[in-house]
């Protein structure tokens, strides 16, 4: 190793010192060089001297390597990484999820011509009337008539009065028609017959008439079918099939009358088949057209609802579920929506049968262990941790540099002015320094952060404020150092020369004094960078500094405040903490090395 720096020898005590140190440090150095050896005469610039001394320091080299790799990691790594800062990852997971639920129907299903004719209120009143055994009920201004075809099928009609004050005397009928309703002789006879039999309704000419008694007199109304109430549940074989009022009404009528096994509705002919056993009755309805018969609908007392809207469950599934429910099975196999055979599990609850199966769902890949795809695993939000660390490093380093720049600018200007002018200006500035030194910065940043939280300041603006506040609170140390140095520097001859050439004070301070402080400034700045990164990460850890979705080493560790993360997922927070530690340490090593290199006397 060439060790030439002590040959740079103007007659200066500092350099003689330097020479001695170098000799002491390298006793084993080859001493055969003659005085006129070319290598010994080589002159090194002061910068080179500093560099040489710096590179001789192992710790400083270590620091330099750490910081260089941190920069590579954060700035280049972010570019190389295939993932983005805010990219979240999902995985598909098999989970027991609700698929459908089935139950034996115990409630009436209503079908009606239009909503207007039969409102929800009317439905409730119908059920009430039915339970009380009434055949008529009122809702609002309308009165309704219930015709119970069977105990599970009722026809509901709206009544329109046709005659009032009806009185039967023998075979004669006295009445006053309403709205000039036309009464034929056959109709009158039908009324008389009905009244004789003490029935309250009859069918005539395709319409149903209802006789209601009003004291001694009676009233006659004509009933218009508006709705049916049935316990039957209709399921379609085809996804696009829906059943209207007329279809259901005609079907029900056909089921109950059992005169024929066909009926027509909406101009189409249907045929049905009854399947009955001890417990329940089902009807399979076929659509009959020129091409023959096709399964069209299934009417049963078992109701199946899918857990998701717009999911179609086919008849086979429903049948399978019903059989399983009747047999009290725990599981059954049926085709799922995609037509694959799937095993379903039944969870019976009261009258209901919850059906669940294993389904594939998309979930956030949170806290995934390190793998080839994610070298350091993923965090709570399913983001790639390695990538987050890279971007977090960017944020930390950028914040560090910006804050230190602000501090240096303020510190150099104020420190320089104070040191140069002395007197009352110096006094004033130093008191300001004292004041700022006393302001507790961490608590102040915390309270300002909490105000920003409450005011919902956007995240990027927040980072900016954070930097400004840290910069404004951090400069006193630099100002003090600059002032101290300048106080001694300004007494030197070169300043007298500068004054003699008539330079302005500004030029004298910033061109001639400040450059002489740069070594100390660099040392202070390097060490300060470490401190700023520490403060920033602490604030981010507390949730006051850099906030999600922006990454920062501090807020990555923040996940650990949940105990289960601390216990189970070391990869979430240890790497981030380690990066903070070695980065700050790297800056401190460099700062230390630089100080020793700039000022070799200190090292002794």
């Amino acid at each position, binding site marked *: 190793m060439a060790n030439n720096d002590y040959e740079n020898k103007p007659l200066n005590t500092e350099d003689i010192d330097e020479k001695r140190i170098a000799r002491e440090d390298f006793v084993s150095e080859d001493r055969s060089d003659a005085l006129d050896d070319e290598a010994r005469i080589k002159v090194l610039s002061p910068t080179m001297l500093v560099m040489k001394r710096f590179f001789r320091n192992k710790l400083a080299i270590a620091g330099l390597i750490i910081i260089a790799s941190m920069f590579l990691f954060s700035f280049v790594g972010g570019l190389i990484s295939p993932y983005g800062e805010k990219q979240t990852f999902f995985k598909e997971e098999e989970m027991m999820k609700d698929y459908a639920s089935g139950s034996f129907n115990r409630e009436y299903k209503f079908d009606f011509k239009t909503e207007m004719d039969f409102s929800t209120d009317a439905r409730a009143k119908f059920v009430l009337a039915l339970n009380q055994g009434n055949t008529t009920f009122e809702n609002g201004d309308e009165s309704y008539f219930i015709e119970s075809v069977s105990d599970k099928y009722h026809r509901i009609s709206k009544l329109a009065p046709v005659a009032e004050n009806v009185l039967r005397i023998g075979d004669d009928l006295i009445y006053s028609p309403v709205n000039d309703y036309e009464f034929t002789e056959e109709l009158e006879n039908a009324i008389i017959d009905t009244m004789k039999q003490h029935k309250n309704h009859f069918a005539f000419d395709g319409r149903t008439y209802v006789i209601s008694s009003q004291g001694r007199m009676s009233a006659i109304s004509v009933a218009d079918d508006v709705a049916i109430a049935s316990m039957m549940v209709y399921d379609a074989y085809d996804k696009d099939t829906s059943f209207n009022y007329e279809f259901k009404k005609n079907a029900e009528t056909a089921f109950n009358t059992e005169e024929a096994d066909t009926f027509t509705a909406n101009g189409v002919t249907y045929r049905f088949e009854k399947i009955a056993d001890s417990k329940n009755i089902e009807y399979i309805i076929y659509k009959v057209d020129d091409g023959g018969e096709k399964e069209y609908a299934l009417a049963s007392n078992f109701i199946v609802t899918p857990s998701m809207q717009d999911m179609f469950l086919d008849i086979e599934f429903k049948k399978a579920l019903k059989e399983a429910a009747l047999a009290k099975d725990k599981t059954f196999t049926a085709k799922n929506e995609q037509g694959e055979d799937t095993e379903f599990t039944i969870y019976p609850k009261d009258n209901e049968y919850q059906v669940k199966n294993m389904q594939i769902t998309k979930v956030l890949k949170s806290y995934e262990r390190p793998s080839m795809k994610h070298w350091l695993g993923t965090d709570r939000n399913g983001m790639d941790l390695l990538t987050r660390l890279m971007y977090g490093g960017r944020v930390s380093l950028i914040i560090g540099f910006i804050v230190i720049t602000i501090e240096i600018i303020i510190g150099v200007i104020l420190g320089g002015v104070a040191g140069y002018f002395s007197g009352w200006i110096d006094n004033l500035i130093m008191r300001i320094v004292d004041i700022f030194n006393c*302001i507790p910065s961490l608590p102040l940043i915390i309270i300002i952060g909490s105000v920003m939280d409450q*005011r919902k300041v956007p995240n990027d603006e927040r980072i900016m404020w954070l930097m400004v506040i840290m910069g404004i609170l951090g400069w006193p140390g630099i100002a003090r150092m600059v002032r101290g140095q300048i106080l001694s520097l300004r007494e030197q001859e070169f300043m007298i020369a500068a004054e003699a050439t008539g330079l302005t004070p500004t030029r004298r301070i910033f061109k001639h004094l400040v450059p002489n402080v740069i070594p100390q400034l660099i040392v202070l700045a390097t060490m300060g960078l470490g401190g700023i990164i520490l403060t920033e990460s602490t604030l981010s850890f507390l949730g006051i500094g850099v906030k999600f979705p922006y990454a920062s080493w501090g807020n990555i560790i923040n996940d650990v405040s949940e105990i289960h993360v601390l216990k189970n997922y070391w990869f979430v927070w240890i790497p981030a903490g380690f990066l*903070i530690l070695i980065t*700050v340490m790297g800056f401190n090593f460099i700062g230390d090395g630089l100080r020793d290199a700039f000022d070799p006397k200190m090292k002794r």
Partner: protein
Amino acid sequence: MWKFILKRVLLSIFILLFVTLIIYTIMRFIPTSYVDAMAREMSMKPGALSFQDLRKQLNSVYGLDDPVLIGYFKWLSHAIRGNFGDTWYYTGTVTKKFADVIWNSFFLGAVAFFFQIIIAIPLGILSARKQYSKTDYAVTVVALIGISLPTFFFATLLKLVLSVKLGWLDLYGSVGKFHNQLSTWGKFMDIISHNLMPIMTLVIVNIGSLMRYTRTNMLEVLNADYIRTARAKGLSESKVINKHAFRNTLIPIVTILGGTIPGLFSGAMITETLFKIEGIGRISYDAMVHGDIPFTMFYLSFLAMLTLLGTLIADIMYAIVDPRVRIS
């Protein structure tokens, strides 16, 4: 000497006035909407004053409706008499809450401070005596690691190792669940085991700077001429180190340490928060996060006062030790 002290004290009071003025101004610049929102939130709590009363109380203590300067003097006149108002986040007055928790913080800080001293000073002296040896490098690296360690990271590491993996200590709390049922000795051990991790954290994180300061000073002393003279006289190395070097090293160290004593009252915000210890640091942190302005004002002024007191003590001690300071 007395003149010097008086001068420094007056200067400190002057600075304190300005610092509190700045703190007050910053608090005043917090938007009123925030203050109102917070006051409203506080008034919702059971047993709290009504919103109007709270606002009125704030006005009387903090002079919120007056111009900044007048408001400041209004606040100051109350503060000097020790009236900092009621806390919003806790119950009772600010000063009562402060009195409840301050000693927890002080004891934690004092024990940590003691360990710092008995670890850092011998190690610093050792590394100075064996400059550039492996020991020196090891001490330097350990010191720098201590300086560079984020408190929260080290505390979490301790938790992981000592309580999660080994299960020796509780994760947090200053005493255990069954503290009151223990015997005297049990209580004592309970307190020790619960404060072990916080103290370790504080010691490790703060040890670095003291260690390096000791080393630098010891190196300076060891290179002084009187040490060379002592050695030339033929004194034994232990005598040189213990009698001549060590005593002289102690002068700046004791000065610095004297200056840090008031800091023991300031509380370790992060450590206390992480280990859920009821100290001034954690209490203030919670108060600040929840926008408890009266408590925050108090805590900030208190911290400023402690900093000033520390500098004052260091200055005075310096002047006692080194008469040259008094003259300049």
